[in-house]
């Protein structure tokens, strides 16, 4: 900053390599899949224009995470952004932006696209049978290979910062 030649405000934007640079410096990508980044970006875009209240979103996210923990699901199935997406779906429904029925209808429509959906995707024939190509591995495996999952106990600490 002192030696950045008057570009103190934007110099950090260029600093994407070196020991302290994210997102890869500490060994992982910011997002594990494109849909995660999209779910993130959509929430931020709605927040920026004031379409959603961020604290409302946070409370729904806390609820979704809590529900997952209470469900007793295997820790391998943990997906932070799956909770994030469910919270976002609930919020836009509550706020009247996208009703839950509308969303399900659109999911069906997208699911019915031909496997090589491009311009031809205009012909929605709702033939679900031919669409098994959206291979998506919500891994059910239980290989216990992740770090830091040796405890599945759930703290019931208060949230007093």
């Amino acid at each position, binding site marked *: *900053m*002192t*030696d950045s030649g008057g570009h*103190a*405000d934007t110099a*950090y934007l260029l600093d*994407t390599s*070196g*020991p*302290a640079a*994210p*997102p890869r*410096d*500490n060994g992982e990508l*910011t997002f594990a899949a*494109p*849909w995660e*980044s*999209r779910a*993130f970006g*959509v929430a931020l*875009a*709605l*927040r*920026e*224009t004031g379409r959603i209240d961020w*604290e409302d979103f*946070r409370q729904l996210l*806390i609820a979704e*995470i*809590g529900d*997952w923990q209470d469900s007793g699901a295997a820790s391998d199935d943990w*997906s*932070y*952004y799956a909770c994030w*997406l469910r919270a*976002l779906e609930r919020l*836009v429904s509550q706020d009247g932006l*996208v009703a839950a029925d*509308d*969303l399900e209808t*659109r*999911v*069906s429509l997208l*699911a019915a696209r031909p496997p090589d959906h491009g311009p031809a995707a205009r012909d929605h024939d709702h033939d*679900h049978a031919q*669409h098994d190509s*959206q*291979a998506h591995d*919500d891994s059910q495996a239980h290989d216990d290979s992740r*770090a*830091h999952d040796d*405890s599945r*106990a*759930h*703290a019931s*600490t208060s*949230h*007093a*910062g």
Partner: protein
Amino acid sequence: MTAAQEHLDPALRVEALASLLTERGLIDPATVENFIKTYEKSVGPMNGAKVVARAWTDPQYRVRLLADGTAAIAELGFKGPQGEHIVVLENTPSVHHVVVCTLCSCYPWPVLGLPPSWYKDPAYRSRVVREPRMVLAEFGLMLADDVQVKVFDSSSEVRYMVLPERPDGTGHLSEDELAALVTRDAMVGVAAVSAP
């Protein structure tokens, strides 16, 4: 994949959600992309590292940082979502701070970027409160028994960032060189900063 499974596919669901919001004029796809790019490439721990290096080299800045983290961090141009109220916790030879968000994943985005997966993991969020020394040891940070460990739980208002101790033997380094030593994990409190 059956129709029921397709409805659970998050990629399909987020695509459906984004397409509806776009058609209704509620989001601009370019804005969505811009946010993704920003947090993938431009905002991250290198911001916080500069804050730490400045605090190590400028005693007056350090005082301002500890008194009002948000304002002092904004002096370096770092602000934005999840940075509205940042409190900086100073580690000393006798007190070590570590940060968690037990309920979700609150994190000071402007200085650290988005949280790593272990920070969001249910195991870290519950265990660091109950057995912080053991969790820190698993990260490779062994603290002497006479060092007090304080766990800070982020709330809806406050985001915490740790000001790690400056390592010995770094008196000759410039501010930029010091910033290069500071890691994300040190600013969450699960690591110490080492001399080069």
